[in-house]
């Protein structure tokens, strides 16, 4: 019988190290996880709140909205309304995870298994992250962004910078390339380009010109690349453009070069977070499944005391709790609960399939290779496709899922399908589409810009099944676009599909 890793509730660096080695052994050798080098940092509650309010990043430029978030979270936390996350992971290389100093040793063990192994494996191996984000350079890029924006504030004043950031933040959801892969210049090239832009601006600066009534600002270098004019056929090859921030950065007639750079920074951030928004269920599910598995293996090896495993179970149960829709605590499907249930279910199907499972999942039911199936799922799916592919009838029954059809002008909701033989497929695909963020969010595109005449910018919201934009927010955000474009903006809502 091996001695348990720890018996005291307080953590220390030695026990953390012992635990990490034990967890790592299971994660690498049994589960065959593949991770970036770990960097584990112990932080205080205030630092956790800091990280919370700065989009979960260890460094971030300054903006009032982060201060607002901090004040709100701090208030809620001090009043005891919310607990803090026990951990936070940053998708970077090396992968940084934060552990809260207040955690007990059992919690630290869970958190290490959850964050340092589960989430990190997911970040490193999922195709979305591999394709769209650049773990190697994100921290350096943020450092650059922070410096750059601080420099702008010094040079052009807080108000000016704040105005641009406000407008850019309002368009963050429309600041990503959804369907085309963003160009991925290396960090060195990004910095080099930035440096050259600055140098160019400085060389162009002439004290004499500054005193002239006009032409104080050197023309934006992008002026030459205004190639959004229509060709002979009346068709513009570059439009429509889905990435509003990109479009404004490149073609806005009024922005100065530093303002364009700020748009670029915000756009890069939005792009960086885009995969995370598409994989909430999978990401948290994978991490929860990994920590659950590892904790049980540790316990079976005699490395955890009974007290520790009970503490773990209590906390785990709270994390994967799913209130029902008529419960006052209900606020949507809990990604931890759904993700964890689906992954545990995959393991069950591999090990002890029922007849139904063999029918629904002939490819892997009963093969016993749950590690392989899960790793494949983690690598090649996002929430939407994962649910469409792997949600089993048994889970739909367990969660008692039912689908509703809603029409805005009707007085009633129609129950279109429930968890029965006739409804499984419909419930499943409805749920899957709910997680497709390109469908859940508005689809707004730039369709034209009158550059020769009144410089009006034309936007189109292609309504999905006739759902319009929220009217008040629509006008507020349009004001922000007008500020960036510098001229009138027309946003039209047309029937899409």
């Amino acid at each position, binding site marked *: 019988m091996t001695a348990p890793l720890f018996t005291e509730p307080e953590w220390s660096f030695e026990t953390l190290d012992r635990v990490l080695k034990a967890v790592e052994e299971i994660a690498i050798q049994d589960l065959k996880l593949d991770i970036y080098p770990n960097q584990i940092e112990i932080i205080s509650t205030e630092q956790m709140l800091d990280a919370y309010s700065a989009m979960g990043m260890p460094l971030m430029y300054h*903006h009032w909205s982060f201060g607002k978030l901090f004040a709100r979270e701090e208030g809620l936390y001090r009043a005891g309304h919310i607990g803090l996350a026990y951990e936070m992971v940053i998708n970077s290389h090396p992968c940084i995870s934060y552990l809260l100093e207040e955690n007990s040793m059992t919690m630290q063990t869970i958190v290490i298994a959850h964050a340092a192994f589960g989430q990190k494996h997911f970040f490193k191996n999922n195709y979305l992250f591999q394709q769209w984000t650049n773990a190697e350079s994100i921290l350096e890029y943020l450092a650059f962004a922070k410096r750059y924006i601080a420099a702008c504030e010094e040079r052009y004043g807080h108000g000016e910078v704040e105005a641009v950031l406000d407008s850019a933040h309002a368009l963050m959801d429309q600041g990503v390339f959804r369907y085309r892969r963003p160009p991925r210049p290396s960090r060195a090239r990004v910095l080099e380009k930035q440096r050259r832009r600055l140098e160019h601006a400085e060389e162009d600066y002439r004290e004499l010109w500054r005193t002239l009534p006009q032409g104080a600002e050197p023309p934006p270098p992008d002026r030459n690349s205004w190639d959004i004019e229509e060709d002979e056929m009346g068709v513009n090859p570059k439009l429509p453009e889905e990435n509003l921030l990109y479009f404004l950065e490149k073609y806005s007639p009024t922005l100065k070069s530093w303002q364009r750079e700020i748009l670029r920074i915000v756009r890069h951030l939005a792009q960086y977070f885009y995969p995370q928004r598409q994989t909430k269920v999978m990401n948290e599910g994978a991490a929860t499944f990994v920590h659950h598995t590892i904790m049980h293996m540790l316990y079976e090896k005699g490395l955890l005391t009974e007290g520790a495993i009970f503490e773990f179970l209590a906390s785990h149960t709270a994390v994967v709790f799913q209130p029902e829709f008529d419960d006052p605590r209900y606020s949507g499907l809990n990604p931890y609960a759904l993700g964890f249930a689906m992954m545990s279910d995959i393991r069950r199907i591999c090990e002890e399939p029922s007849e139904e499972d063999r029918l629904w999942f002939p490819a892997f039911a009963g093969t016993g290779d749950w590690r392989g199936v899960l790793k494949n799922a983690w690598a090649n799916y996002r929430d939407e496709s994962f649910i469409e592919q792997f949600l089993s009838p048994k889970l739909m029954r367990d969660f008692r899922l039912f689908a509703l059809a809603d029409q805005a002008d009707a*007085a009633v909701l129609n129950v279109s399908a429930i968890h029965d033989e006739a409804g499984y497929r419909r419930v499943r695909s409805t749920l899957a589409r709910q997680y497709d963020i390109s469908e859940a969010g508005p689809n707004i595109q730039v369709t034209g810009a009158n550059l020769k005449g009144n410089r009006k910018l034309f936007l189109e919201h292609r309504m999905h099944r006739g759902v319009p934009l929220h009217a008040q927010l629509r006008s507020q955000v349009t004001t922000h676009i007008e500020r960036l474009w510098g001229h009138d903006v027309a946003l039209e809502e047309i029937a899409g599909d």
Partner: protein
Amino acid sequence: MTFFIDRRLNPKGKSLANRQRFLRRARAQIREAVQKSLKDSGVADIAKGRKIRISTQGTKEPRFRLDPKKGGKRDFVLPGNKEFITGDQIKKPPSGQGGGSGKDAATSGDTEDDFEFTLREDEILDIFFEDLELPNLVRTTLSEVPSQHWKRAGITTSGSPTQINLIRTMRNSFGRRLALKRPTLAEIKALEEDIALLEGKTAAAGEDARLLALKVELERLNSRRKWIAFIDPLDVRFNAFTEQPQPTSQAVMFCLMDVSGSMGEREKDLAKRFFVLLHLFLKRRYEKVDIVFIRHTHDAQEVDEQTFFYSRQSGGTIVSTALDKMLEIQKERYATADWNIYAAQASDGYTQSGDAKRCVELLETELMPICQYYAYIEILDEREMEVFSSEEAGAELWRAYRMVAENWKNFATKRIAKPADIFPVFHELFRKQETA
């Protein structure tokens, strides 16, 4: 390879810059909330950090959102079905309740609540004293005879040797030596070595001529070195100083309070609150502010802050004694050339009959000419406040002081009856003036 890093000791307040930006952004709402929350609280508590609740107006972050209530179709899935079967129809819950799907309520954007957060002490005071300042401070200090002090004023060509500026002098000398091609020691030394070398050799024919040429050259260089001085009087520079008037921004505040029997506990409490506020304000606003506390009954004494605010005394009331005391202290310690003099007096308006006349005399002839500002706070009970609702009506001292106020612009009189009056009156007294 895994590293543990202990970040707990890292510098705190990483988000302070964000907080300041947020406070600046929500300034209007925060100010309103702070004023409201201060209105009913005791002065002693004013400097404490407190929770305030502000609306999110002005700090909204709009994003495009869909509004499925307004039109179109959608499908969604909920967990926890109990009795529904396919084809059932469910009445929509009334709007605003969140109802059908909690997710909508969370994402529709305009349901963001007011929110509550804690402001720290200095932030509260910042906001509270935002528009206030000591009246007339700058103007009169400049018109007073200011004290002088010496200030560096560049470089001159003449001065006393102790003020010589070595760097400038040597730089000039070096430039001049270069321009006039003064031979360096190294050049001369090299030449001398050459000569020594030639002299050492037994002179071969033809070498003589060269030796001679070198000697002539050496002679020329040496004489050149002589007439191009290493440091010429032309090179010498001195640090210059000029005398500059220095405006004094030090101020002294005289706090005068009646502590006699006629001042009840309530009156004294109100007066104290006013002075506490004043005290906080002054300590915060100006670096160098002296505060003198004078309390009086039929006799005046200078006391320390603690005694002034918290100890009691009994006796009659002669207000002029306090004014005498103030004048005495001023003459002794606070010369008008160096100090701006402010005074605030709190009283219930009663004084020995006939004394009011002497007070006016003292103020008119002695005090007002030297004071930048004199504020008189009369503390009434609420019944009296109703009786004396007009400015003219009032006790003897009030009427007397009204006369002074007519003659002197920098004399102000105000009445306070309840704690809630203090903040408005204070604000009015120390409001920033449009034209200084």
